[in-house]
């Protein structure tokens, strides 16, 4: 596996919602090399050809989803949910202005 460039690592970090300093990005270059050891161990595993085959083995057991009846269930601690907001205005959650 080729060593990833620093700005590629920085792009990956933005993808992860993080902002890395150069020092941290360098450390990750090394970590990625270690990861490649793990990945190379998987190389001789044949991948299923069809999407259906991938889907087949995806969940742990072969059960299908139960469906919920369309009945109202009111949560009883709404004020706690609102209070957990780091910044709020009356009952809204506040963030810096988003350009839309």
């Amino acid at each position: 596996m080729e060593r990833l460039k620093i700005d590629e690592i920085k792009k990956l970090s933005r993808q992860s919602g993080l902002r890395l300093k150069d020092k941290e990005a360098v450390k990750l270059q090394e970590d990625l090399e270690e990861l490649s050891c793990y990945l190379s161990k998987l190389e001789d595993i044949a991948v299923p050809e069809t999407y259906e085959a991938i889907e087949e083995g995806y969940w742990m057991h072969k059960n299908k989803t139960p469906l919920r009846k369309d009945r109202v269930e009111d949560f009883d601690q709404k004020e706690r949910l609102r209070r957990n907001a780091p910044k709020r205005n009356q009952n809204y959650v506040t963030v810096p202005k988003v350009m839309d």
Partner: protein
Amino acid sequence: MDNQRLTIQQIQKKLIDKKLSAEELFKETLDKIKEKEHKIRAFISLTEEEVLTKGRALDRKLQKGASLGNLEGALYSVKDNIMVKNLKCTCASEMLKNFIAPYDGESVAEVNNAGGISLGKTNMDEFAMGSTTEHSAFKVTRNPRDYRRLAGGSSGGSAAAVAAGFGQFSLGTDTGGSIRQPAALSGVLGIKPTYGLVSRMGLVSFAPSMDQIGILANNAWDMARVLETIQGPASSKDYTLVRRKPVAYHRRLESIVEDQESKKEKLLKGITIGIPGEFFEIPLEKDVEKALNQGMERLKDHGAILISLSIPHFHYSLSAYHVLTMVEAVSNLARFDGVAYGNRASKYESIIDVVEKSRGQGFGDEVKRRLILGNYILSKEKVSLARAKRVQELLKRDFQKAFQQADLLFTPTTHVTAFKPGKRSNSPVDMQLLDQLTVPASLAGLPAVSVPCGNPENLPVGGQLIGNYFDEPVLLRGALGIETLSETMDPEQIKVR
């Protein structure tokens, strides 16, 4: 008299027979905590004040002669990534250091309904990513058997609490061995149930396809009792559960023991135990090897037949596990953006700032590392993801073949005994080997339990039993087999009454 050695059933008997009051019993535990917790550091939050009040209430109930709930008389702790209403749920992370849980996780609610009383929330590796609690943002937990050493992880706090006698059991979580490994290193029992048996509602998942809530306890009886209580209810909000009729695990274990006794048969007569060669190819510490051999002897003493078998895809499991869990972690931790709850950076100008700074400050290095590696796989190595999933499929098949020949599998839980801080944690690869033996059962979703083996004078060693899907009754029977006839247990323990 050290009531720590008693099963919950025995405790309840003592309480009913008025040989002991709940308040006295609880005070014993609280004293122990006062004496040793500052050295062990098992807890992130403690709720001692309520415990005595509840103890007195229980005594009043006993006075009236009311019947006791399944777990009444027991004190327990909860790993800090499971929601306990109105308590902080930090996941040992700066990101959630002030986050108050608005609801109870389903297993917690069930334990509470059965009468269990909570001591508090236990320490762990941040978001359960780690194997020693050294990645906790707040503190490092020490091993009650040797304070210089670690208790393992990520449920290190839970394992240490149970080993130190802080309560009869603890609810922990196990994704790749996070209950079993610290249980082994701390000298207690730890079970990861079948995936889909226990509700994950209320568990802060990082790898939803493998995470499970499980139990750490001092003996197999208590483990059975708690498992009976926390198995997913029919009305569960976890729709990934496998819907089944509830099983009375404790009663089942009792009947098996009674049965064998009445037939004058050994406990494990008729049980075949497979020894998968690949698990033993890893270089084991001398003490571990010795203890495991003793474990196997014990199993044979109980009448089990041991056979060799193979799990051919064993060597791919660690790689597959890491690929899958890193990717799932990326997804499950995406919700921590500083917007509606959790840590928000104090200085920010734009919404990107809110996200990046809150996460930057909130997450520790190990978490950040895994997120970026996980994103790397999603962006550039999607084929590895498909391969890892395929390994999962292949391992499941390997195990199914094995279970055609044996009822249970027996392997070491870890290849080492408890170690000192910093010794291993500087090399991520070395750390990850700690998971090598526990990961296969996680990938396959099979139930597995770690039981203390070997000489109690030495550092603890755990032997791992792996069972087939929903075969917890057999697993518990095997666990009972290993722990009895062991020097840690009173011979009295074999009998229930």
